[in-house]
């Protein structure tokens, strides 16, 4: 009777699955150096093209090309390379420690090191990041965060600064511009906007930087963050780390198919960029551009960082169940450490020898930190914060009922 075919439910799928290679053409890459760099006071609606292109600086031979290639101090690049190497070494060792049951859980950022590290080096101290669990690079890029303390938290031992209350990787370092990580996805995204609004209300000069994964953009707080940031022109950088996966779920299920996460920003009236997240120079340049906008009262910028989650989601995950085992090897944006190393060697600011020496030195550093942290206890050896502390910090002052409960526990 009707002229129409039956309706059908469409369910997106990745092209690759275990035993079947991924066709990465879905990524729509732009060649390095080809995407324009508008002035920082550009109108948000005028960034529409940038939300679909990909800002890249490093070409395949390691040269820095195009309008986003800034004259960056090689000293800073070397610092960045070392921080990325340190992050990768740190992750690798902590993974082993988790397998040895010294800690309950771990999450690495393998393959995504450039994003947090270059971002950290492009911000000012005093700026506040609202990270997810995959931005340990923000901390490891800084000189003022003690690895021993971080590992004490991972081990949930008696020096754990979170007093044993948090999952291992859920750090909080106010003094280092690192907001307390929540286990509930996306909540920090709107909080960052609130922090930025507060800075604006108080006439501060510090800005906020909000972090979220591709998968978590489907949560409400992504939308509220974009809305509030746009309405009040909040001085905030809205970072979406699109590492293609959310546990077992391909980014198309979060809405990445046929559009980009950056495009969401433009729709909401926010200047937006889509950037090669494995290109240290592009990350640094784009962050600087966005930070400049925020500091000049020009409002928020959304940046989609395109990268790949090279490791399992967490120590509870086994990606070989849902994607090709060697997927990362084929990911067209490569390895951020290898790419920056090639660049530095190409410009004569680094060498294989220096790289090897740095690798050894950093391995020793991390190992020493781990050893020291373990001397304060690990999850399983009983050297942990006292049960009495469990009742503290629920409120500023402990109410009567918690005193009674603590007493009942007999601690």
């Amino acid at each position, binding site marked *: 009777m009707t002229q129409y075919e039956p309706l059908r439910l469409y369910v997106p799928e990745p092209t690759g699955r275990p035993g079947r290679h991924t066709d990465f053409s879905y990524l729509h890459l732009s060649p390095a150096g080809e995407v324009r760099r508008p002035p920082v006071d550009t109108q948000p609606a005028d960034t529409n093209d940038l939300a679909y292109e990909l800002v890249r600086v490093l070409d395949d031979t390691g040269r820095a090309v195009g309008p986003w290639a800034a004259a960056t101090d090689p000293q800073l690049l070397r610092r960045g390379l070392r921080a990325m190497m340190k992050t990768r070494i740190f992750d690798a060792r902590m993974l082993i420690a988790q397998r040895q049951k010294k800690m309950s859980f771990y999450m690495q950022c393998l393959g995504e090191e450039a994003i947090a590290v270059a971002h950290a080096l492009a911000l000012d101290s005093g700026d*506040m990041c*609202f990270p997810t669990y995959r931005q340990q690079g923000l901390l490891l890029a800084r000189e003022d965060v003690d690895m021993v303390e971080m590992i004490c938290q991972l081990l949930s031992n008696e020096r754990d*600064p*979170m*007093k044993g*209350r*948090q999952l291992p990787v*859920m750090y*909080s*370092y*106010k003094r280092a511009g690192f*907001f*307390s990580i*929540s*286990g*509930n996805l996306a*909540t920090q995204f*709107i*909080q*960052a*906007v*609130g*922090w*930025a*609004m*507060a*800075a*604006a*209300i*108080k006439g501060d000069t510090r800005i*906020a930087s909000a972090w979220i994964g591709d998968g978590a953009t489907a949560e*409400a*707080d992504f939308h*509220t*963050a974009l*809305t*509030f940031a746009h*309405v009040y022109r909040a001085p905030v950088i809205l970072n979406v780390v699109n590492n293609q996966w959310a546990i077992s779920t391909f980014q198309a299920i979060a809405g990445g198919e046929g559009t980009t996460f950056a495009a969401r920003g433009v729709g909401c009236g926010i200047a937006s960029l889509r950037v090669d997240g494995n290109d240290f120079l592009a990350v640094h340049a784009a962050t600087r551009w966005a930070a400049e906008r925020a500091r000049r009262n020009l409002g928020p910028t959304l940046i989609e960082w395109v990268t790949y989650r090279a490791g399992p989601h967490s120590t509870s995950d086994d990606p070989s169940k849902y994607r090709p085992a060697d997927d990362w090897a084929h990911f067209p944006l490569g390895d951020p450490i290898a790419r920056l190393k090639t660049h530095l060697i190409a410009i004569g600011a680094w060498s294989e020898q220096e790289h090897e020496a740095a690798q050894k030195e950093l391995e020793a550093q991390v190992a020493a930190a781990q050893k020291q942290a373990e001397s304060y206890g690990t999850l399983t050896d009983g050297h942990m914060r006292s049960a009495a502390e469990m009742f503290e*910090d*629920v*409120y*500023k002052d402990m*109410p*009567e*009922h918690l005193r009674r409960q603590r007493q009942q526990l007999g601690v």
Partner: protein
Amino acid sequence: MTPKTTPMTMIQALRSAMDVMLARDPNVVVYGQDVGFFGGVFRCTEGLQAKYGKSRVFDAPISEGGIVGTAVGMGAYGLRPVVEIQFADYFYPASDQIVSEAARLRYRSAGDFTAPITIRMPCGGGIYGGQTHSQSPEALFTHVCGLRTVMPSNPYDAKGLLIAAIECDDPVIFLEPKRLYNGPFDGHHDKPVVPWSKHPLGEVPEGHYTVPLESASVFRPGSELTVITYGTMVFVSEAAAIETGIDAEIIDLRSIWPLDLDTLVNSVKKTGRCVVVHEATRTSGFGAELTALVQEHCFYHLEAPIERVAGWDTPYPHAQEWAYFPGPARVGAAFKRAMEK
């Protein structure tokens, strides 16, 4: 010298609390839906934007989650945001930010960050608002450790508690029984409304003062029966006491949780009988916790089962509002049952 007082409605008292705090503390900001230029749908913030400027008092998008989420971020920065949820019935989109974030931030960060925020919300029925303008969700908040939940029953307490809430370093859910905004409503919806200007608790000091959190008030002393209640039900219970002639001691919790346990335990130990009254839905309402606490602490003093009077376990209906509302007749009947046994 006693401070100068003025007759105020509850709305004026709440506005005065915000006015005092905006003036005293540059970190206080006030925002929410329609609270800026217009001054709020209940006019609680009228005039404040004109007085303190648009970056201290402003309109927010219709996003309760965004309002509370930004408040948590502002709190982490060092501000003391006071936000309005237009009706308590609309707090649900903010649940995650309230429960997982505001309530737990201090704990999970071991004090590194805190959320000293106040979330105001009009609650309760009696205005033909139907199921989405009448709810009393306080019980849900009391199950969330880290939150403080407060509900004033009169202008004096409203101002003093709101100032205490804003000054408190913990997140405070501040519930305002909207049926009390203009007068001490005793449940007799068919009688003319009595204005606050005719009630002693409508006399409110002009400047700064606090009613401490975690302190209940003995609203009406009595010897035969203890009534534990808060909000609108304080006046309904008073009417029931007068109408039944039972010498009921009415305790107005004011701070619902954490609460002032001693005041109620002492009273029940004295009277041996207890009725718990609230407007919210009965099952797993805060009356359940109150009943549990009283039986735990006063078991050997109790001469009869603790009675609970509450809204029925249905959504708040529109046309049958007064059959739903636990008015003086239903409360009085419970008083009698508690006395009979």
